[in-house]
């Protein structure tokens, strides 16, 4: 029976990264299509607790690899350990969520496995050995089906395209001892960007600002707080240093799909739209009636954001 191996991700704080649950449901979908067993691997300094959590989502086996040398995530250390595991399991497909870590790790792992790889997969088509991966190209202007012909196939999935895995029949946990080689990279510092607001990738509501804010995010943040929303931004706003770079939404930033996305003073370049067009409801506020953002917005309001924002916050407050 073929094997699909999903690589889980432990956050620096020790918790399971939520996007792993989306990768798990992608793994389940793929396993069903190719008639495979679903396995999960998790690596770190101490992953016993995370492994116990993972087993409740219905995989056949959770491979729990704790090793002192894996305290901090480093691709060079994790890739060989995972490649050894994948090889010993004779895994046919190895996947993970397309998080920053997944994007860094999986191609290195693929290289080690001499495997071809599809990034940011949106879905699977076909059955058995003919399965193809659908994925975006050209900032999502094209959706392509790709076929990988190496014996092992590696992929990352776009978390917003798959629901989080539901609890299922408990799998078994197998501990293994990853071999950790000396690596040429060391972590010097991890500077957490702390925010009292919800995480951008996971928030139900996102309020995003662009160059039109002229760097004044105060009213926008007040609106976000009124809505319990995360704050996002266009590249122009990040480049100017108005907001931290990890708030960037788009082709090269985060891909988000909240229930409600409010774009404020953002023109709607394709690279920005690539990161938010999966949102259920899009609102655009822009003083230029011709701005391309209106082409993807469910509700567009033409106006000066500095006038609209306080009014909008008051009206939302009153409507609640």
């Amino acid at each position, binding site marked *: 029976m073929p094997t699909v191996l999903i690589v889980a991700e432990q*956050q620096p704080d020790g918790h399971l990264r939520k996007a792993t649950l989306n990768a798990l449901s992608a793994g389940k979908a793929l396993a069903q299509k190719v008639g495979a067993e679903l396995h999960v691997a998790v690596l770190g300094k101490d992953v016993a607790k995370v492994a116990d959590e993972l087993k409740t989502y219905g995989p056949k086996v959770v491979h729990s690899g704790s090793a002192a040398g894996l305290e901090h995530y*480093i691709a*060079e250390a994790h890739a060989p350990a995972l490649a050894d595991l994948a090889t010993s399991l004779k895994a046919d497909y190895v996947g993970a969520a397309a998080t*920053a870590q997944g*994007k*860094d790790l999986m*191609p*290195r792992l*693929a*290289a080690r496995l001499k495997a*071809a*790889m599809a*990034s*940011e997969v949106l879905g699977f088509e076909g059955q058995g050995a003919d399965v*193809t991966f659908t994925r*975006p*190209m*050209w*900032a999502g*202007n*094209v*959706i*392509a*089906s*790709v076929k*990988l*012909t190496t014996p092992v196939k590696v992929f990352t999935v776009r978390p917003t395209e798959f629901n989080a895995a539901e609890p299922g029949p408990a799998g078994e946990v197998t501990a293994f001892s990853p071999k950790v080689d000396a*690596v*040429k*990279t*060391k972590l*010097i*510092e*991890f500077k*957490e*960007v702390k925010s009292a607001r919800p*995480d951008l990738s996971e928030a139900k*509501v996102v309020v995003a600002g662009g160059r039109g804010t002229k760097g004044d995010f105060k009213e926008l943040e007040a609106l976000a707080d009124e809505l319990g929303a995360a704050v996002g931004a266009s590249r122009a706003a990040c*480049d*100017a*240093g108005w907001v931290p770079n990890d708030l960037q939404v788009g*082709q*090269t930033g985060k891909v988000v799909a909240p*229930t*409600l996305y409010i774009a404020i003073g953002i023109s709607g370049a394709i*690279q920005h739209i690539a990161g938010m*067009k999966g949102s259920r*409801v899009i609102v655009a506020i822009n003083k230029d*009636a011709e701005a391309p953002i209106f*082409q993807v*917005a*469910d*509700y567009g*309001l*033409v106006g000066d954001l500095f006038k*609209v924002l306080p*009014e909008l916050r008051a*009206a*939302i407050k009153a*409507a609640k």
Partner: protein
Amino acid sequence: MKILVTAKRVEDPESKIKVKPDGTGIVLEGLKYKINPFDEIAVEEALRLVAKFPGEVVVASVGGKEVQEQLRHALAMGATRAVWVNHTGPLDQMGIAALLQKVAEKEKPDLVILGKQSIDDDQNQIGQYLAEWLGWAQATFASKVESFESDAEKNKVPALTVSADVKTVRVVREVDGGLATVECQLPAVVTADLRLNMPRYASLPGIMKAKSKPIEELTPVGLGVDVTPKLTVTKMMAPPARKAGIKVPDVATLVQKLKTEAKVL
């Protein structure tokens, strides 16, 4: 210091990309081509480092003879010389990484800097494959802490910190939830994020000088690399279109619609 950078030829990011009705590719008419924006940032970073640690910047590209345009662009920015791997057939990430591995083994740079992804395939893989196959350290998604309005950026201070003995490089990486600073032993592979620097414009004298800078021609066969793709695109489609929305006249209508129609409040 010797730095190897890449210059992929891609469609201008401003172009409107459309899928051909039969799904075999994109409509090529009217498209303009450029150096991949991420690669341009890699070239800029290499030039800033070499200004500090004298040496050379070697720029490589794989493709037909048209990629010489992108090589010339990097040369005009200030790169020292170019390597062109002449290949016109289909290529995948593994093929390109294998070719770059051979080029790196031949050139023996202290550092390879590539764009983190190219804006056509959006795969974000080659730097990582290359680092693994070379057995080198990797630091992906390199970015700058300071904003583009900062003095550091105006003075073209490199964002990558190379040690005085050119043995290590410190890289600030953009990751989920924060910034990770890593130190890699050289030689290493670094991939550039958009926020690493603002690339310079090629000056007129730079463009003139670039015309006489050498472009060395290599081939996959000469490098001993089989580039038969292991990844093939079987079909292309337009993305599902979003249903056109409406314009609302005022805030009151917007809030009412969000509440009763969209039910998101």
